[in-house]
């Protein structure tokens, strides 16, 4: 299923007509929203914690150059290696070359949005290396040949029947509608992949500059296996995902887990600083940290810098009524939902219908309300819209429409006359006090909604009449 080649509107249409998807989305987002609000609500002082989280992220971004240098130096001092990658190409080349030079045949991966962003799997597979996603949701969509539809729950769009069929085909599991046998089948199959893998690739939730460490948060244990079992561990980190001190985790992990899944802490938090030390029984012999820029260093200087505070908790997706309706794939990029409508145009500027994503929002503000770092998502969406207009990216009818709107609003005489015509027009179209069909482009309104017939007299006319009568009377 490659919905990504379609146009945004077609993807939306496909999603809206997918009943299975709607059911899955309703179930998942309702659960996430409930879990989150329960967990945040139970805190002694959630507002302060969120303010702190934002301040900590802002602080890190304000010294991003310095903190990255410190992180890299300390990782190297611990015996790790650091790759500074300006773009996806550099990151892919580094990792592919590393795999080649170390004779790597098979790779296990734990969830990494950054690796999705740079299409790492495809590149490695082209280089002849087998790559297995090990997060259960990621594994399911990998064998289904799809992409994640949610930051936290990549396979929420799949039903148990679909998953059973996939496991039957790929793991030889007897068909079932019970979840536990599917879990057992996946555990068994993936466990062997871990034990045989030569390299593990993980994402990074936070880099810690002072410690030369990376933090990886998860619930399944696949990231622990990925970073502990194979001989080589490669961590890919977007350069903005950094904090200065270990102690900052005391705030960040709390808001992350609660916002993402409603947990107090995720099941596993691993803090990793370089390869295994001499004398340690286990752990990787090599540790590589890939610092991925891919446009972030420029974003930091512009009007979207705030988006770099994002900790990828997914709360804004769950809260978004648009996401709840269309799911993640319709957005077309790696990142979906409200923050995806901002990040995708910024980080994947080559996708052709990107400029439409910021319009896929009613600007209701539910995203900002739940964001643990209080990103002003609606404001950023509005800025992206302004950018699109400035770049001439809009439907040809919009410009004249907006211009005549502005002309009318700026000229009371025109406003009166225009209003009169419109009101007259709607009265001709009305049946039983309502309008079932408006002429284009407003027929898009009346497709699914009636429109009221406009009144004979405006409020201002009434008011002026009343004022006149008062003065005369």
């Amino acid at each position, binding site marked *: 299923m490659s919905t990504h080649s379609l146009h945004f509107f077609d993807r939306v249409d496909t999603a809206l007509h997918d009943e299975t998807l709607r059911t899955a989305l309703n179930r998942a987002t309702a659960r996430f929203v409930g879990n989150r609000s329960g967990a945040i609500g139970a805190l002694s002082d959630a507002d302060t914690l969120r303010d702190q989280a934002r301040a900590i992220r802002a602080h890190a971004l304000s010294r991003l150059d310095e903190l990255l240098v410190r992180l890299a130096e300390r990782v190297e001092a611990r015996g790790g290696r650091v790759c500074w990658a300006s773009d996806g190409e550099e990151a892919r080349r580094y990792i592919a070359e590393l795999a080649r030079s170390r004779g790597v045949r098979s790779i296990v991966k734990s969830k990494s949005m950054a690796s999705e962003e740079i299409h790492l799997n495809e590149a490695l597979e082209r280089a002849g290396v087998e790559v297995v996603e090990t997060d259960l949701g990621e594994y399911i969509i990998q064998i289904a040949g799809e992409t994640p539809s949610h930051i936290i729950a990549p396979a929420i769009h799949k039903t148990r029947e679909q998953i059973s069929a996939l496991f039957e085909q790929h793991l030889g599991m007897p068909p079932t509608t019970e979840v536990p046998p599917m879990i057992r089948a996946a555990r068994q199959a993936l466990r062997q992949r871990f034990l045989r893998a030569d390299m593990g690739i993980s994402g990074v939730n936070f880099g810690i500059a002072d410690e030369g460490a990376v933090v990886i948060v998860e619930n399944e244990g696949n990231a*622990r296996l990925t970073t502990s079992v194979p001989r080589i561990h490669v961590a890919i980190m977007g350069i903005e995902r950094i904090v200065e001190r270990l102690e900052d985790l005391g705030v960040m992990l709390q808001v992350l887990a609660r916002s993402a899944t409603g947990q107090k802490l995720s099941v596993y938090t691993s803090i990793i600083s370089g390869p295994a030390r001499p004398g340690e029984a286990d752990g990787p012999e090599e540790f590589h940290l890939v610092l991925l820029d891919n446009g972030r*260093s420029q974003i930091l200087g512009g009007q979207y810098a705030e988006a770099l505070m994002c900790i990828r908790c997914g709360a804004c997706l769950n809260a978004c009524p648009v996401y709840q309706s269309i799911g993640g794939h319709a957005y077309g990029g790696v990142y979906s939902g409200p923050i995806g409508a901002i990040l995708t145009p910024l980080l994947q500027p080559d996708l052709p219908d990107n400029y439409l994503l910021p319009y896929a929002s009613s600007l209701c503000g539910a995203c900002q309300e739940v964001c643990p770092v209080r990103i002003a998502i609606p404001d950023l969406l509005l800025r992206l819209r302004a950018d699109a207009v400035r770049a001439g990216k809009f439907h040809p009818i919009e410009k004249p429409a907006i211009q005549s709107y502005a002309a009318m609003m700026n000229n009371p005489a025109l406003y009166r006359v225009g209003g009169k015509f419109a009101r007259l027009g709607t009265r001709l179209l009305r049946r039983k006090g309502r309008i079932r069909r408006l002429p284009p482009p407003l027929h898009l309104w009346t497709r699914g909604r009636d429109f009221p017939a406009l009144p004979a007299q405006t409020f201002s006319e009434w008011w002026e009449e009343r004022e006149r009568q008062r003065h005369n009377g």
Partner: protein
Amino acid sequence: MSRDQILANLRTSLASNRSWLEKEASAAPHAAPPFVHPPAANLVAQFSAELAKLEGRTYPVADAEEALEVIGRLLDEREARQVIAWDLEQIDLSGLPALLAARGVSVLDARVHGAARKERLQTLEPVSVCLSGVDCAIAESGTLVLRHGPGRPRLASLLAPTHIAVAHRSQLVRGLGEALAFLRERYGAALFDPTSHLTFISGPSRTADIEMTLSLGIHGPPEVHVVVL
């Protein structure tokens, strides 16, 4: 060089946005709160209740003898002949080596590196029980904090389906902030000197990736037992 290019970009960017970011950074204190829920008077009870919510079990015991009894029972129930464990002297429980010896349970050599790596891993894979100590445990989230390092393999809380951890009442802290402060106080700047790895474990491995149905043990141990003495 990409490094220099990235850093140059960052500096240019920060020239325009640093002051805004600094203003945002100073809008709230950064110091983490020691805990985020009202702490309970009895931390063991709180820890135990939180871990229970996560489907993990706590065994508050009066003394080492009772602790050994619990561990012995857990091993027997699983018919464990071998365990993956921390060096026993690192697990603060006298009598543990004798207990294992009495049952004929051997602690496998968990050293996996070098050429024998994959082979060693296959030997460890069938083991049914992991045994570890903790550095501290967080009452308000039912979390175990494990600092790995020599004698403390990370696989000893990860590979087998059952993880038994031994904790002491004195190791309980109220919240995550307090746990981090404790680690800092205890190890200072050397926190990551002998090890590359610190893990926080809150209950058994879980996933909800299939239709949001909660399932335990997809990758890590489906069972977590914590003996607190």
